[in-house]
């Protein structure tokens, strides 16, 4: 079966990103396909490489990056939500005259159409949020 996953909240403040990650891993372990993981609202904050969580705690951003690399996942951060919250890749930085970018490895910034497509193409769309 093909799943899409939506993550609506940022790392640590809500359990949403953890639940989404665990569901995604379990789906992959069961042999299912993950069409896309789409990050919206404060969920875009899962896509910054600038976090330094305590050493004895899970690294939420890095484990998404690692999972994406291991399974060739499509992690998409919504451009409109990212602009509001300051998640920036090199193109966005250039386009909006920012002095740096902060997007984490394995994430890409794209439009809300990617969410709709994720709903159309997958058999099930799971939403994790507040």
């Amino acid at each position, binding site marked *: *079966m093909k*799943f899409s996953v939506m993550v*609506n909240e940022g790392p640590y403040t809500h*359990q*949403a990103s953890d*639940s989404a990650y*665990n*569901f995604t*891993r*379990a*789906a992959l*372990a*069961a042999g*299912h396909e993950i069409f896309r993981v789409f990050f919206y609202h404060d969920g875009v904050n899962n896509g910054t490489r600038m976090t330094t969580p305590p050493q004895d705690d899970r690294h939420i951003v890095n484990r998404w990056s690692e999972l994406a690399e291991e399974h060739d996942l499509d992690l998409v951060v919504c451009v409109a939500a990212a602009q509001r919250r300051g998640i920036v890749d090199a193109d966005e930085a250039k386009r909006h005259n920012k002095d740096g970018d902060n997007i984490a490895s394995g994430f890409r910034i794209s439009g809300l159409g990617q969410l709709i497509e994720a709903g159309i193409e997958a058999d*099930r*769309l*799971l*939403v*994790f*949020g*507040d």
Partner: protein
Amino acid sequence: MLHTVNKSPFATNSLQTCLGLAKSGSTLLLIEDGVYGALVGTAAAEAVVQALQEMHVYALGPDLKSRGIEKEKLIEGIEVVGYDGFVALAVANDKVQNWL
């Protein structure tokens, strides 16, 4: 349909609203803080006891364990599943509605 609820019934009306709209034969999975809705003997338990007459109710094991909720403290009839079970429920039900 698989309904998931992630909020404590003492914090928001998500569980109450979900139960008011879920049709007979649905499946409910309590996750995150929603697992507090599985506790026996609370002010919110009666609604879940009633719901069990018409639908299957599950609670996510890792979230119960994190919160120190033992299986003996769960409303009778609620089954505990892991993330593998969560995935299986999503596959088995033709659609999913995640109440936030």
